[in-house]
């Protein structure tokens, strides 16, 4: 066993945990770790603490949490729409932007993809730029949620992230029923790197938001 408790876990607790007792709790965890508890135990306690304090905030502020999730989702849908419109208005190397459905066809086997845009750059850039646009809209939505919820920003962004993940899971579950294009879309959305980046972006923003709040609080205490 090393003498230092897991730094990343401690940072995660200070960043994503809420409540007045986080520093006291962290002291307890360090004391137990130095007394012989394992790193796994430390990490488990931190993850439980983040979850428990999040639930406590949700229980204490259910309306604010619901508002945070709603604001985040509405903003995300609006920004996604604007980004899609903007990309569609652009021409790349003389070709119009095909949108995500063409990319889906590419990934699904290129059965219906127009041959005029099957060049190699398009294989790379179209999905990449679409992903970047999605990341930007998710980050911007989470940033807005964080800005609107001050002291509860961590809880708000976590609530938005949880809603986003749940809606994705729900959408994937019903996708085959809703649209004849769904198998291709489901295939596209199931690509791990794309889906992972898309869902982790708000969480990343919540970390940034949390960090900002921590430094703000540290200055206020000093």
């Amino acid at each position, binding site marked *: 066993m090393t003498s230092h408790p897991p730094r990343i876990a401690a940072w995660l607790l200070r960043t994503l945990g809420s409540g007045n*007792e986080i520093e006291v709790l*962290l002291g*307890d965890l*360090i004391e*137990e770790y130095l007394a012989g508890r394992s790193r796994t135990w430390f990490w488990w306690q931190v993850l*439980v*603490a983040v979850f428990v304090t999040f639930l406590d905030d949700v229980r204490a502020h259910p309306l604010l949490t619901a508002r945070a999730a709603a604001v985040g989702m509405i903003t995300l849908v609006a920004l996604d729409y604007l980004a899609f419109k903007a990309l569609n208005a652009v021409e790349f190397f003389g070709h119009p932007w095909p949108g995500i459905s063409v990319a889906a066809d590419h990934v699904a086997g290129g059965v219906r993809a127009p041959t005029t845009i099957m060049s190699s750059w398009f294989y790379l850039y179209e999905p990449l730029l679409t992903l970047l646009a999605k990341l930007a809209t998710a980050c911007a939505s989470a940033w807005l949620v964080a800005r609107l919820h001050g002291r509860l920003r961590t809880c708000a962004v976590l609530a938005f992230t949880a809603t986003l993940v749940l809606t994705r899971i729900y959408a994937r579950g019903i996708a085959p029923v809703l649209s004849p294009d769904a198998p291709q879309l489901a295939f596209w959305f199931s690509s791990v790197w794309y889906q992972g980046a898309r869902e982790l972006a708000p969480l990343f923003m919540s970390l940034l938001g949390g960090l900002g709040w921590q430094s703000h609080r540290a200055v206020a205490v000093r």
Partner: protein
Amino acid sequence: MERQLLTDFELMILLAILRVGDAAYGVPIAREIEETGGRPVALASVYTALGRLQHRGLVTSTTGEPTAERGGRSKRFFKLTGKGLRAVKATRRSLMALWDGVPALKGGLA
């Protein structure tokens, strides 16, 4: 009317504080519940419940001195208030009243 009875976890925490005595902070409280109460417990759950109990006026807390073995962080010591002690007794009375007279629990059948 304010809720007087305690949940099982709140009751265990208050009893653990009484058993530990003056040195009742997160670690010994959790350890007491685990070892005597036979229930695995996360420290965060203990603090969340203690926060609720303090809000209801059932416990008070004081902050100790920062120590090196805690990375320079302080301990938070907890103590029952008179109201907390009355809540423990009231919960015990309720549980015993429910307990008594249940045929399946007589004679060590439970």
